[in-house]
């Protein structure tokens, strides 16, 4: 399995080549080609590895080199290749490949074309370091690395103030999560003396419950930041300032899912602590619902999809919190595909509309760009959870599982499903159908995108249609990584702990076979209700935005407070801005003035002033007159002698 090193380093080499020579060559399309080649090679390698691991179900641990030795523990750069990482790697590389291809078209004519592909390649490299890692430090390396790439790509059009701000915001907010994550690493090291996953898992029984909980929660803190869960979600919608392929790749398909992947990767740790699982569940659920509500009333096409990403990530976390790790990972995979599709579709729309973002100003563009519309529709349906698209097979089981385990969670996720269907079709209708609100000039230029953009769309759409039917394959495939009984690398003791931790979902039986599942949900009450909800959402959207039977403005007025709450994104941004941006900045300014300038420098410069003042005072004794001199000498002598007779 030594060839596995090709997977991360192929995009890295592409990055180096483009980074050093990108501007020297004819910029377009050579940089794009290099980048695509880099990621494609890596995709091929990972697919080969995927097949390999699918056959054997085993795991490989490839140590590349030793990074740092602490005490007796060797932090290495290495590759852990098991079904979980193989799945994630494949998702990353395959989706990336298509997005890269799309980007060669999307970025055409941009003066920083090579830079874009350099960043993208860097991102893929970092992401692969993350997914392939066998220890927490390398994970953290990739974790921060994708943060960097995300920062660079969000700020790709850095001449825009909003892009620069969004980039910085994303990095700093992520850093809050990373802070917790790093502390988690430190605690883990202090507890276990090692940071390799497998060693940690097997040492779990030695550690106390509280410590494990703390480690899990701190690491999850990192996931909250990276996967933009509430309350650290605010950066993701703003991150849409980046070029659309970036949004598709990083802020939908891969990077933001890193948190989900991390939780799954460390499943035994999380499973060992109920509190941790509950936290994951709670955060995921809340994010799923709240983000959906926010998505309802946005008008920016990319932001709507971004909120939907938040929401779907919430579903994944909810699945993991419920103990349904495989379902979570499956949803991750399917989400990567259809969300990439949706983003690329919207990218295609943006190219056609010259980066017009407001859905309220679009309309009836479906006719001019049928492929985009068709694929977008497929993506929307998948997102809404309509069979036979992959979203149905990955999202419904989560909701059904929640029904079995926790009714409160179920209510929210169920509600979320309605909202999801509603907002995505609101977008769909407003953009592609409805009335024609485009201005005349743009109208004339609306056209279908070139093949290097539509082909990825079609491929992804195909995948969206077909992937769901591989449900059973995926479930079995992931078993060696996520089912405690099949995890070869766990000791018996750990297996027991993990199994106990997952007991909350042990009674849940979800049909793995796609056809059976489809049949089951079309027959069971619960299945029909969920499906019906999704359809209801679509219908409502159709009613309001296509048929215009109900005026959305009136509804907005009717529920003024709620509308405002949603529209202002539950005031998260405002509060954060007030406290952490404005407040922090102002406090810093005040502290600088008071603390540094007045107090500390006051003392420092003050002592200089006191010295000078003292000099002026002492100068007065030298008043130039002999009488005075002698008088002072007399006084001095008197005191001097007195010192020896009185004090002694």
């Amino acid at each position: 399995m030594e060839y596995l090193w090709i997977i991360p380093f192929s995009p890295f080499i592409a990055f180096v080549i483009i980074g050093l020579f990108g501007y020297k060559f004819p910029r377009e399309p050579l940089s794009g080609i290099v980048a695509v080649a880099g990621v494609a090679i890596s995709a091929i390698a990972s697919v080969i590895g995927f097949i390999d691991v699918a056959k054997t179900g085993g795991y490989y641990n490839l140590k590349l080199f030793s990074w740092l030795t602490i005490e007796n523990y060797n932090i290495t750069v290495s590759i852990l290749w098991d079904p979980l990482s193989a799945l994630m790697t494949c998702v990353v590389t395959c989706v990336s490949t298509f997005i890269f291809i799309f980007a060669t078209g999307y970025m055409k004519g941009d003066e920083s074309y090579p830079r874009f592909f350099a960043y993208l390649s860097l991102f893929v490299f970092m992401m692969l370091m993350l997914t392939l890692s066998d220890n927490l430090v390398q994970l953290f390396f990739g974790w921060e690395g994708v943060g960097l790439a995300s920062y660079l790509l969000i700020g790709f059009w850095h001449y825009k103030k909003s892009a620069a701000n969004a980039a910085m915001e994303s990095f700093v907010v992520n850093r809050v999560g990373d802070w917790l994550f790093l502390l988690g690493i430190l605690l883990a090291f202090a507890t276990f003396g090692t940071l390799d996953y497998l060693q940690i898992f097997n040492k779990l029984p030695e550690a106390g419950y509280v410590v494990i909980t703390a480690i899990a929660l701190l690491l999850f803190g990192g996931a909250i930041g990276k996967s933009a869960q509430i309350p650290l979600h605010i950066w993701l919608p703003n991150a849409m300032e980046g070029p659309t392929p970036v949004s598709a790749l990083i802020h939908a398909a891969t990077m933001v899912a890193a948190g989900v992947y991390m939780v799954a990767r460390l499943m035994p740790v999380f499973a060992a602590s109920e509190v941790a699982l509950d936290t994951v569940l709670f955060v995921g659920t809340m994010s799923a619902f709240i983000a959906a509500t926010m998505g309802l009333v946005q008008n920016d096409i990319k932001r709507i999809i971004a909120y939907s990403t938040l929401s779907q990530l919430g579903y994944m976390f909810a699945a993991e919190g419920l103990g349904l790790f495989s379902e979570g990972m499956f949803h991750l995979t399917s989400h990567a595909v259809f969300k990439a599709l949706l983003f690329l579709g919207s990218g295609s729309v943006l190219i056609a509309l010259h980066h017009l973002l407001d859905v309220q100003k679009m309309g009836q563009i479906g006719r001019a760009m049928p492929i985009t519309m068709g694929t977008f529709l497929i993506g929307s349906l998948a997102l809404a959870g309509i069979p036979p698209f992959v979203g149905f097979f990955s999202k419904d089981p989560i909701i059904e599982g929640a029904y079995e385990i926790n009714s409160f969670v179920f209510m929210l996720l169920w509600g979320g499903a309605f909202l999801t269907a509603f907002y995505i079709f609101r977008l769909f209708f407003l953009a592609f159908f409805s009335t024609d609100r485009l201005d005349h000039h743009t109208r004339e230029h609306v056209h279908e995108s070139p093949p290097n953009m539509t082909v990825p769309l079609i491929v992804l759409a195909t995948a969206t249609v077909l992937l769901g039917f591989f449900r059973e394959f995926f479930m079995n495939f992931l078993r060696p990584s996520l089912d405690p009984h099949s995890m070869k690398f766990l000791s018996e003791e750990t297996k027991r702990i993990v199994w106990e931790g997952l007991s909350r979902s042990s009674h849940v039986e979800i049909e793995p076979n796609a056809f059976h599942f489809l049949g089951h949900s079309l027959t069971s009450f619960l299945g029909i209700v969920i499906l019906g909800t999704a359809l209801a959402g679509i219908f409502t959207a159709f009613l309001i935005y296509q048929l215009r039977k109900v005026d959305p403005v009136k509804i907005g007025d009717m529920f003024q407070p709620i509308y405002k709450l949603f529209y202002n994104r539950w005031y998260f941004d405002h509060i954060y801005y007030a406290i952490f941006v404005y407040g922090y900045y102002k406090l810093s300014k005040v502290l600088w003035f008071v603390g540094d300038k007045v107090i500390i420098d006051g003392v420092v410069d003050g002592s200089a002033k006191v010295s000078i003042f003292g000099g002026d005072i002492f100068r007065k004794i030298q008043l130039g007159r002999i009488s005075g001199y002698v008088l002072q000498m007399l006084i001095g002598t008197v005191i001097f002698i007195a010192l020896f007779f009185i004090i002694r």
Partner: protein
Amino acid sequence: MGILLSIVADLGVPNFYVLIPEIIVLTVALTILVLELFTKNKSLLSALSIFGLGLAAISVFFIQEGDKTLYGLYIVDTFSLWFKFLILITSITIFAVFNPYIDSKRSYYGEHYYLMLFSILGMMIMVSSPNLITMYMGLELMSISLYILVGLLKRDYKSKEGAFKYLIIGGAGTAIISYGIALIYGKTGTFDLIGIALKLQDNIDVGGIGGLVLLIVGLALKASAVPFHFWTPDAYEAAPTPITALMGGVAKLATYATIVRVTVDAFGGSSEVWAPAWAVLAAASMVVGNFIALRQKDVKRMLTYSSIAHTGYILAALASGNGVGFFAILFYAMVYVFMAIAGFLFLSAFERNEGWTNSVEDFKGLAKRHPIMALYMLILMFSMLGIPPTAGFMGKFGIFLSLISADVWWLTIVLVITSVISAGYYLRIVANMYMYEPISKAKFNLTQIEKAVIGFLSILTLLLGVYPAIFWEISNLLTNSLLMTAVAR
């Protein structure tokens, strides 16, 4: 009559051979006294003086180190010989640059030369006195010559005023010293330092303390320690600058040497009395000297206050009251004399130039107008501040060593704080020299000798900081010489 004769006969014949350096200096002085009536040739007089001083300095090496001579009124030991040598050679530098200065002031008196020689003679007598009488006479010869020299600037009222202040306060100081000596005499019945030490040993009482304290006050006055420093700034400023160098450098050196000898030889056993006394004076000098220097615009006056502060540093070593202290004080005194003389001679060289008023402002842009001299001044300033690798640092290092070895922490802290404050004014000069544009482009008119002398002194300051072992060895020898004299009896 017979009784008297027998007493006198015991004294034996004085050994005038050991007086050769003094005799040379005296002879030269008297020769100039006569010669000056017949010639107006200043170079001749100056050369003669330098020749005499050089000869005397060389002759120091040919003197057999011996015991006391002249009926116990004169001592020839390593200590006195070395200091004599140092006094002589440092004086040479002053004579070397004296003529141009006095020309520029158009204030020529032939008396300058022999009066300076007389004062140097007084210093030589001071440092080789095993006896309070000799010390007193040497001190007075030095002081009285200096009173005159200060006031010798023609048509300069300030010179007279400074001299008069110096005279009155110096006179009062003389009276105080005399009174102290009287009390000590009354207490011990002798003027001999060792005799005093024997009498006092460890039963120093009120009378002894009184005498000692008054003696300290008097000596502190001569060494210009606060609060007996008042004459210093005025006299130093008033005096012709080379004379200031003589007072601030050579005379100070002799005074410190005398102080050390008196304290060690005569009062070695009562360090618990004089150590705190010197400590108080040292602390006061450091504080007052440095603070006032901070506010001086006139560099000459600033250097004066800095010299008061340095008196504080030097005396601080005595506060430790142990051998390390003597060690340190001797070293510091020896290196300080170079710094001080160089500093004042620097001013004397520049003072000759048109438009130079010794004000801090005049130093602006000196590094561009005269880079070499600015570099010398830089070295001097950092040396006075006590930054390595200059001799000033090694001096302060010794002081710290002595203070801490004696656990005089409070004085150590005072020294530290005041040193930091002193950085304020030393740096101001450096900053003015290097960090401002010149206020005038006029060329400086400096003689080669001036440059060479100042260069020599400042380079020496630097070298003594880089390799101070020789001077430390000398201080070591001197301390041993002193302590051995004290213990041997």
